[in-house]
C-alpha cells in the first residue's frame, strides 16, 4: 500500500480560478452552494467519480484548479441535468461541468483513459468542416485515434448497424459551409469570456 500525503498548502490553490468559473454566464450561483450533496445523490454517475459533484463544487470554490481539472468527474458527466434541476440553490452544475471541461481541454489536462475529450474535438472538427455529424464516421475516427481495442470489441455492433441499415459511410453535410465557418470565426476565439477579467 502506498501512503500519500494529502495535506494542501495555500500554494496548491490557483487564486482567481473560482472567480473565473463563477464569471461564466449561468455559473454565478455557485457562490451559494451549501454542500448538501443533492447533486451527488441524484447523479447517476457519481458512483464512478473520484470526486463527487459536491466535492467538485467545493474544490472550485476553494480555487483548487489542478485537482478539479485532473479529476475524472467532469468526464463522467453525461449532461443529464438532474443535478441542475434538483439543486436547492439552483446552481447550474451541468454548466459548471461544461466550463470545467472546456478549461481542461484548453489546457490539455485530462485523464488519458477517457477518450471523451478526443470525441469532443473530433466532433467539433467534423461540425466545422461539414456542418453536420455523421455518427458512425465520428465513432470510427474516435476509435482510430483513441482505442484500437475498442474497435475490435465493437465489431459486432458495427456489423449490426450495417445489417439494420444504420451504418452511414457518406458524410452528411450542409450547403453553406462557408457561412457557418464565418459565423464560428465571428464568435471569437473560443471560451466564453468571464464577466470580470481579473
Amino acid at each position, binding site marked *: 500500500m502506498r501512503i500519500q500525503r494529502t495535506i494542501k498548502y495555500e500554494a496548491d490553490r490557483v487564486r482567481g480560478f473560482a472567480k473565473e468559473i463563477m464569471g*461564466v*454566464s*449561468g455559473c454565478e450561483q455557485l457562490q451559494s452552494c451549501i454542500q448538501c450533496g443533492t447533486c451527488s445523490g441524484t447523479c*447517476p*454517475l457519481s458512483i*464512478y467519480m473520484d470526486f463527487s459533484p459536491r466535492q467538485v463544487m467545493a474544490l472550485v470554490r476553494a480555487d483548487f484548479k489542478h485537482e478539479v481539472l485532473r479529476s475524472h468527474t467532469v*468526464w*463522467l458527466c*453525461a*449532461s*443529464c*441535468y*438532474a443535478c*441542475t*434541476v434538483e439543486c436547492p440553490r439552483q446552481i447550474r452544475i451541468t*454548466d459548471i461541468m*461544461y*466550463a470545467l*471541461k*472546456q478549461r481542461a*481541454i484548453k489546457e490539455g489536462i485530462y485523464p488519458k483513459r*477517457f*477518450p*471523451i475529450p478526443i*470525441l*469532443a*474535438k473530433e*466532433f*467539433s472538427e467534423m*461540425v466545422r468542416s461539414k*456542418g*453536420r*455529424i*455523421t*455518427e*458512425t464516421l465520428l*465513432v470510427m475516427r*474516435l476509435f482510430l485515434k483513441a482505442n484500437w481495442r*475498442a474497435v475490435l470489441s465493437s465489431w*459486432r*455492433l458495427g456489423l*449490426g*448497424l450495417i445489417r*439494420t*441499415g*444504420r451504418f452511414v459511410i457518406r458524410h*452528411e453535410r*450542409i450547403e*453553406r459551409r462557408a457561412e*457557418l465557418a*464565418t*459565423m*464560428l470565426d*465571428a*464568435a*471569437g476565439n*473560443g*471560451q*466564453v*469570456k468571464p464577466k470580470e477579467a481579473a
Partner: protein
Amino acid sequence: MKYTYFPGCSLKGLGRAYEESLLPVMRHLGVELAELDDWNCCGATAYMSVDEAKAGVLAARNLAIAEKAGPYDLLTPCSACYLVLNKTKHNITDFPEIRDTIHRALRSANLAYTGNTQVRHPLDVLVHDVGLDAIKSRVVRPLKGLKVAPYYGCQVVRPYSTFDDAWNPTTMDRLLAALGADVVPFPLKTKCCGGSLTGTVPEAGLRLTYILLKEAVRRGADVIATICPLCQFNLDAYHDQIDRRWGRTRIATVYFTQLMGLTFGFSPKQLGLNRNFVPMNPLATEPKAMAQRSQSVRGAP
C-alpha cells in the same frame, strides 16, 4: 397545423427509424412538416465541452433560419437538439455576453434571431396541439394488452422543458394510454441512459442502460417506448455487452412514434421497426396475433 422540422444529425443516421416513423405519423394526423433549410448540427453536448459560445452559435444559426422560414414552431425530435436549441434561446435572453457573441456571429452571416421561434418536441405537439382525442380517433389497431414502459430520458424534460414535469412527466404515459397500451409504472422514466458514455466509458455508461432494462423487465414491460434517438440506441444496441457483464435482460426499445404508426395501421417496415437489434415482439405488430394476445391477457387469472 404546420411546423418547421429540424431532424438533427441522429435522425439521418443511427436514429433514422425515428424519422421514418415520425414523418408518416405526422402526415397521417394532418400535421405539415417543412424541413429546415440547410440546417446544421445543433451544437450538442460534445461541442459544448469544447466551446460553449460556438455551440450557441451553431444552435442560433438554426433558430435564425427557422425564424426566417415563418411564424412556425421548430419541431425537434432529438432530445439533445431540443435541449441545446432551448438552452441557447434561454441564454440569449438571460446573459448579455452570450447574446452579444451570438448576435455578432449571426450578423456576420446576415442572419438575425429575435427570439420568436419556439422550439417544440413532437411529444409536446402531439399531446397539446394535435390532442389525444384526435390521435385516438385515428387508432385502428389499439395496443390492447401491450405492456409499455414509457422512458423519457433526461434532456427533454430537464431543465428547459415547458411541457412536462422534470421529475414525473406524464405526456407519453397519456399518449400511450390513448393508443390502448397498458402503461407500466416506470419510476426510472427520467433516469439517464448513459448518453455517449456507453461508448466512451462502457463500464459506467452501460450499467445505467442495464439498470433501465432490468427494471423495465422486472416490471413486466413488453417493450420500452422512447423519445430520444440516443436513448433508443443505447437501450437497443448494447444487449450483447450488457448480457456478458450483468446477465440477460432482453427487451425491445422502440420510438413512441413507431407505436403510434402501428396503431394507425402502418406496417412495421414502413416505420423502420426492422432496424432494431432487439426486435419488438412480433405478436405486438401483428393485428391478428394482437387480438389473440389481448384475449389471452383478459383470460389470464
